[in-house]
């Protein structure tokens, strides 16, 4: 049974029409079904459903094993699962940890289109301010599905 209702599927299809360049969703989970963490299977299924609704060839999914794919874990600096890295022309350091459901589902749609376009959409003043930063910054945003 699909996770997304017909209505949501239609909304997703419409939102993703805004995509220009291809985007990759790299999902970190545990390959062994028996060991797959609680929300890992659902996260993977959700991402695969979303990808199927994007314009042809625009959105691909790569599934990585958090335990076995140590190289990928290192490259994407993923420290917990389920994790999703949204990668466009390059890896911008955009991650989701946990299933992007509820309110965060629209964040995911928004992020995919933004990454696809390759422009942050920030106000010029914000862009100028951010340009002053020349040291590593780690932002963690805690949210809940409702």
């Amino acid at each position, binding site marked *: 049974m699909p996770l997304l209702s017909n209505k949501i599927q239609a909304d997703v299809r419409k939102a993703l029409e805004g995509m220009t360049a291809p985007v990759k969703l790299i999902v970190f989970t545990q390959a062994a079904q028996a060991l797959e963490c*609680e*929300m890992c299977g659902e996260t993977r299924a959700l991402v695969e459903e979303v990808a199927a609704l994007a314009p042809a060839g625009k959105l691909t999914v790569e599934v990585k094993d958090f335990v076995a794919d140590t190289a990928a874990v290192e490259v994407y*600096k993923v420290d*917990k699962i*389920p994790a999703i890295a*949204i990668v466009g022309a390059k890896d*911008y*350091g*955009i*991650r*989701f*940890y*946990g*299933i*992007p*459901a509820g309110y*965060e589902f629209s*964040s995911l749609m*928004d*992020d995919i289109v*933004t*990454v696809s376009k390759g*422009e*942050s*959409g*920030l*106000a010029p*003043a*914000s*862009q100028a*301010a*951010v*340009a*002053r*930063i*020349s*040291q*590593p*910054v*780690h*932002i*963690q*945003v*805690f*949210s*809940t*599905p409702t």
Partner: protein
Amino acid sequence: MLAHRLAMESDWIRADMIEATEFPQLANKYEVFGVPLTVINEMIRVEGAVPEPMLVNELLKVLDGQT
């Protein structure tokens, strides 16, 4: 998402959206009582969904050596 847009804008910034209920040990560590809660470099805490200029201002505090 705003934090993700900031990450897009700068190679120095990375941004994680974390589902608090799935990572209770982290929610505990950062004392997440309300969402959204934004934590910048472990030190700066921003509660609630704040407008872009305000979050950018908080972000710039890292330049003042406050983190």
